[in-house]
């Protein structure tokens, strides 16, 4: 399902215009982004948990150069699906 389809379906079921739904979705994802940025997880019932974790800088072998490389540190967003969605899609 594409984002456009999602917005169309949402506007049909909630009875709001598509532009309004788009704006609301955009601002709510932005707030979720800011929360994840502060290293706080988000629980959404029926879907799962979003959280972020920090990965230290590390050495890794690069087969193309045949040499070791130093990879920079980074933060990764991960999603744990909830048990209800897991069972439904089995």
């Amino acid at each position, binding site marked *: *399902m*594409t*984002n456009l*389809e*999602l917005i169309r*379906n*949402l506007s049909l079921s*909630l009875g*709001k215009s598509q532009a309004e739904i788009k*704006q*609301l*979705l*955009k*601002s*709510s*994802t932005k*707030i*979720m*982004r800011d*929360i*994840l*940025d*502060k*290293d*706080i*997880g*988000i*629980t*959404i*019932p*029926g*879907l*799962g*948990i*979003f959280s972020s974790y*920090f990965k*230290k800088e590390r*050495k890794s*072998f690069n087969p193309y*150069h*045949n*040499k*070791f*490389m*130093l*990879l*920079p*540190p*980074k*933060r*990764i*967003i*991960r*999603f744990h*699906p909830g048990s209800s*969605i*897991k069972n*439904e*899609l*089995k």
Partner: protein
Amino acid sequence: MKKKITFAKLLDKIAEETGASKQLIHDLLIETVNLTREGLNRDGYVNLSGLGRFRLKWHKARSGRNPQTGEKIEISGHNSVNFKAEAKLREYINRKYSHLQSEIIEGETEQAEAEPADTSIKPTDTPSKPVSETPSHFKWLWLVIPLLIIILAYIFWPSPKVSETDIKEPIVSEEIDKDVPVPPDEAEQPESKPVIKEIKYETTGRQHTVMHGEKLWTISQDFYNQGDLWPNIYRMNLNEINNPDLLSIGNEILIPPLQGKPGNLTQKDIEDIAEGFIEVYLAYKKSNKGKALYYLWVAKKWNINEIIDKYSDRIDETDLELVVKIEGYPNIK
């Protein structure tokens, strides 16, 4: 245990920021969840703009063992939900490390793979030995004596400003370093952990780091929900931005707060934004761009004579006369 935000708190936050009712936000998010489940069932993937992409992954049936009893079990094929964050989101979360790149370590080939594991063990072994040999009460003495000296020196010294700095530092650092060496693992960790400060938006404005593909218009769209107000951002960052059409990646810019909301601006907001428009006019005028007149026209149409007077010596008079003649009304307000 890591911090987590509950669904109710998330709803509160979104409702507060957008001004929509809590019920509407609740319905929106719950409906989004239902639709994602439906989409995953039907198509096997859902794209959620702003967050990322959910995808179903099929795991084949395989045989495994029960780790407790060692019995053989047949694991049937099943689906799992896979999530990948959007490129923009990943870039935003990692904006602190955007200047870092992977580097080749010279002189190490595949055969040297075992070496780093050996070196990592050595430093952890060495600090534990001297600590275990010295008796515990002696360790306390070494810590207490320098502290006593410092306190006495602080009380009896005639000019404390000079004496403090001279005596305090060398004694404390030498003694403590000898007795309790800091393990290397502990010393490295706090540097690598990201520290994020919270800034209150209402009073001071928000700090923003320019990312790839951003313009002042898009930033204004993101923060004010209205792209037209970008001169207000430009006004606050005259030192940082030379050309309003050109931002460089990594620029730290300040986004000033609005008293009202877009569509319902207060008089002070309009004055600020008009000032921004005049600053943009001046910048474009400098580089001889025709669109400079438009910005002056907008500022003039708002009838804020104080601001025009403030910049009167820098605004071209022929431009002002020309602008007055143009009819119509800007549709920004």
